[in-house]
């Protein structure tokens, strides 16, 4: 363990308050795993925390507006680009993408190439309930399992540079992504019972090493001046 990580405490889980989300459910899930999660209130806090959670209940435009208004977008983007332990949940995964059909013209964080679209109209929308996720072999965190979803939008195809687990609701969609110490879930691990708790535990245990082993791509230009 590096000196820097020791300095901020080995159990430092910070939650980014993206407007109003089900923060308490996320916090309770980490408390059950023996952690003491806290709400982050600054870009420096986002950069400094050992683990950062970007939860998501709300709208794409609302979530991005909140990240930009508080000046947090760049700190989150940088963590994800560097592969540091970061967990994005539901809308959080979508915010990592370039854009969304939910809010045309609103730029996302752009860490994940691709545009989020509305789920296939042939199915019940929102997707509310337990659905199967198929993970490829060799993932660090994601496993094939049945987990809880509550979403109307999703990413259709696994993006370049990321390892993707897929789900099906009418058509195929990205259920989870991982790269380095970053885990992004379209489902809610904090609401997925024992399976979800197991995933969070694995992410807490394995993501620091996965982050160390990750070699970021050549640094891309920072987000436009608007943020």
């Amino acid at each position, binding site marked *: 363990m590096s000196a820097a990580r020791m300095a901020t405490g080995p159990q430092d889980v910070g939650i980014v308050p993206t407007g*109003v*989300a*089900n*923060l*308490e*459910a996320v916090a*309770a*899930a980490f*408390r*059950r795993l023996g952690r003491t999660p806290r709400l982050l209130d600054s870009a420096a806090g986002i950069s400094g925390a050992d683990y950062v959670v970007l939860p998501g*209940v*709300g*709208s794409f435009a*609302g979530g991005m507006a909140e990240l930009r208004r508080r000046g947090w977008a760049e700190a989150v983007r940088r963590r994800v680009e560097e592969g540091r332990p970061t967990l994005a949940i539901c*809308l959080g995964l979508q915010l990592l993408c370039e854009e969304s059909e939910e809010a045309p013209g609103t730029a996302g964080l752009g860490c994940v190439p691709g545009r989020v679209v509305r789920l296939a109209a042939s199915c*019940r*929308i*929102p*997707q*509310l*309930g*337990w*659905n*199967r996720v198929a993970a490829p072999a060799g993932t660090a965190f994601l496993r094939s399992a*049945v987990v*809880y979803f*509550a*979403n*109307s939008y999703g990413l259709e195809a696994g993006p370049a540079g990321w390892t993707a687990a897929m789900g*099906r*609701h009418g058509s195929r969609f990205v259920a989870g992504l991982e790269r380095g110490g970053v885990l992004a879930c379209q489902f*809610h691990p*904090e*609401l*997925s*019972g*024992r399976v*979800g*708790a197991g995933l969070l535990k694995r992410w807490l245990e394995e993501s620091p090493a996965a982050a160390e082993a990750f070699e970021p791509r050549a640094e891309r230009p920072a987000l436009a001046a608007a943020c």
Partner: protein
Amino acid sequence: MLNVRVIPCLDVRDGRVVKGVRFDNLADQGDPARLARRYEREGADELVILDVSATAEGRVARFETVGRVRDEISIPLTVGGGVRTAEDAGALLEAGADRVAVNTAAVERPQLLSEIASRFGAQCAVLALDGGAAAGEACPSGFEVLTHSGGRRTGLDAADWSRRAVELGAGEILLTSFDRDGTRSGYDLALIGAIREAVPVPIVASGGGAHAGHMCAAVEAGADAVLAASIFHQGDWSIGRLKDRLQQLGVAVRR
């Protein structure tokens, strides 16, 4: 493909779980956090807490009960009772709810559904629709909307109201048959069918479900989830045994 959700409902009054018949004669069933923990262990897919005296007492569902249950469970939690504004909904989410159900206040001020959906997303806005057989010809679907825990008949057609609510942003309908509530005589399949015809969002069937056969019939009538209370509280069925039976009947459930 989504599994059919099995949802125990905790009707809560003064911090205790209660259950009656047609929303009346409520009897004590135990501590909400203890029951919630047991139901998650048995395989519940989600929990609903309804504060049954909140509207009558002019307040929002009790936050301490929501928080205590949230600490115990790692499955989704929908909370209803006395929610009149988006701020009330936000306070319940902060206390530990994942979704918020509204009934009386949405009938009085339908815009409430849009306010909740636009702030927290459609998946967060649950319309609790209490339906009962309509007297006379006023309601084309044959069912009318009841508010104030069944205490008031509105004359509003249940199918029309569900359609309007979904247009406004409701992402799920928690559909309770007032006539069947607590009777163990099976879900009202005609009511489920009428609402299924009207809206494309998920429907949770509630009121009268006593065994797997009732639940299978509700799913065939168009429900995506089945809710029950007394059969779980009183130990007639564990959720695990119920799911075994549902599986035998060909209903896809999470194991």
